[in-house]
């Protein structure tokens, strides 16, 4: 993968400052070739955790699978979100390690309290799991997250929720181990090409081209 990245860098270095026509015609194809190499490299590497213990990884994976569940289409689990979060805690989200440790402990305690006999979140049924998360989720509504005191488990859940979404939808060509094989983008309908041409969608396909409205010429 490092190799693919450096080749991509090389191609972009080469593209900088050369004729624009060259860039426009050759660059996307060149990138696509690099991308193919990158993808092969990515899937050839067996996943390995960099931060989580295997036990913790199972719990995180179970949580992400309720945030973006697997159904007729892939969910967080198929997108390898747990690997994304694992690397996140080694990189950009190092500051969240304490929250993960303490929030997870509180969440597990809540799971045991709500469902005696269930020892871990991952051991609960999906219905029980959703109930545990609903008990935490007082604020995770779009555009309505007021500043109010929250428990550690609530803060942890909101952070984990954000990380899960990021891990599902991150550019699959980045080296963050999320959005494996681009499945997250497939789910939301984002094409993976690096360049697009009009028509872009349903409503611009028959657009005749811009014309001033007849009245406008007089108005001036």
């Amino acid at each position, binding site marked *: 993968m490092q190799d693919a990245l450096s080749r991509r860098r090389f191609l972009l270095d080469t593209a900088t400052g050369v004729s624009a026509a060259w860039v*426009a015609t050759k660059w996307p194809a060149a990138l696509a070739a690099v991308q193919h190499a990158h993808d092969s490299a990515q899937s050839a590497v067996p996943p390995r955790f960099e931060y989580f213990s295997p036990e913790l990884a199972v719990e995180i994976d179970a949580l992400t699978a309720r945030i973006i569940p697997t159904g007729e289409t892939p969910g967080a689990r198929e997108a390898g979100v747990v690997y994304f979060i694992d690397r996140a805690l080694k990189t950009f989200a190092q500051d969240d390690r304490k929250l993960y440790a303490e929030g997870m402990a509180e969440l597990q305690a809540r799971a045991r309290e709500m469902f005696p006999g269930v020892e871990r979140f991952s051991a609960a049924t999906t219905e029980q799991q959703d109930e545990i998360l609903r008990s935490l989720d007082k604020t995770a*509504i*779009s555009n309505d997250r007021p500043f109010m005191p929250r428990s550690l488990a609530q803060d942890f859940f909101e952070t984990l929720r954000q990380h899960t979404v990021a891990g599902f939808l991150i550019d699959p060509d*980045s080296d963050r181990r999320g959005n494996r094989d681009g499945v997250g983008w497939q789910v939301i309908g984002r094409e993976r090409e690096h360049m697009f041409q009009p028509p*872009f969608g349903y409503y*611009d396909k028959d657009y005749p081209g811009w014309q001033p409205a007849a009245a406008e010429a007089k108005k001036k």
Partner: protein
Amino acid sequence: MTTGQLKYKTSDEVDFVIIGSGAAGGVIAKELSTNGFRVVVLEQGPYLTEADFTHDEIEVTNQYQLTNNPKYQPMTFRKSPQDKAKRHPAFVYGRMVGGSSVHFTANYWRFHEIDFVERSKVGPISGTGFSDWPITYADLEPYYTKVEWEIGVSGFAGASPFDPPQSTPYPMPPLPVKSGGVIFESAARKLGWHPFPAPMAILSQPRPGRSACVQCGFCESFGCEVGAKSSTRATVIRVAEKTGRCEIRPNCYVHRIETGAHGQVTGAAYFDGKRTVHLQKAKAVVVCANGAETPRLLFLSANKEFSDGLANSSGLVGKYLMMNSGSSARAVFEHPLNDYKGFAVSRVLHDFYELDPEKVGFFGGGGLDTRFDSTPIGFADDYLPHETLMWGKEFKATLAHNFTRTMSIMSHGTSLPVENNSFSLDPDLKDAWGLPAIRMTYKDHPDDLKLGVFLRARMMELLDATDAKQKWANPVEEQDFAYHLLGTCRMGNDPKTSVVNADHRTHDIKNLFLCDGSSLVSSGRGQPTMTIQALAYRAADRITALAKRGGLGA
């Protein structure tokens, strides 16, 4: 590539030190160096090129690849001078060679004639420092044209009946329309409004060394990998470097402008990437550090003569902050728009640019545009209907359905200049270099909020004229976060009521110039970068003329 090669010694007294390489600094560097002057540009951020730009949302948004990082350069915020400010990420700016012109949306409408003379036309507004500019639209018109042709702006001249006079057509046609643009245009025309193709500082046709836009969809907030976005880094800075007289020096964080025995400025002191302090000597200094960092640097440069901040005899440095008002509305349609593809904005309308205060009951005006400005992670965070549960089966289904089918509209409007709205030094908090952090004080003028509500109703009216399956508008709220940093070292003829004169020279110090968003007297209706660059071209002409007649001496 000549990126960041050392050319001058700090002990060389160059003709000009320019602080900041963004929208204004890049232009002035190009103009002064092509006019024969020796120029050093000190840029606090790194020198990034096309190869460094990425579609990785984490790197760009969580790791601040292109912008000021509040972890190292913290800010504080309060609503009024009586409050104790709290740590809060209050504004964002591009922190790299090219500044905010690298990551901006690239909307390039010109200010209209009214923006320069509105105070005379609608009269004073109590509680504000509402003023006319010392220059008019006609003074700036040739420079608007220069911006369009030199950096590359796509558009259709005369497409809006509300446009100010434009002496020369755009150098290239508008970018292609998006589905959201077609819906916007058709609905607006049903209502008798006048939508037009957005003027954008993004190439619709290739230029030497730069590709036309490839519609990759990672545009606003991202750096352009093919040089299609007309940042100063991709355009004028290259020209400046080719003169052989201009050195762009990255990773240089200026913390003090030095003054000499006769009160003139003598150069700029800065931390290099290893936090070693240097002093670059210069015959004159031009500060283009943006509407937050420019006043801050003047405060940091206080001395015996100017204890409240360099060139601050008016007491107005940092005051009259304006950041433009605005809100947004969204709609979901039956079929995919795929507005995630391509640049952000394809259609604009200016029917509400100039409202009659007598009729509407408040001062102000604005524009509407259709803008899909979100990449996938941001979409999931910010673009779903209110009351969507943000996890689980419903969340996933909504996300999967809406991503390709959502259209977004934004309003952009006036901010009135209120003296309390300001930047100052925080008395307690320090940045990672030990310098006082910036404190922002801001509370929207009531008219700005009324305008926001008015434009929000127009956005919903427009969406009502479509066959959207679902539509909603976000609330108009008091702002605590700024993208536009305007008016904080305002231009004017009277040294008592302004910081710089019409030549961008400080009233107090002959060889100190300020040119960036801080120079603006009024806020326009948003999209200030075009006007900042026109001002920069004009400032460079004025500075050149002054220097050539020996007018920069103390």
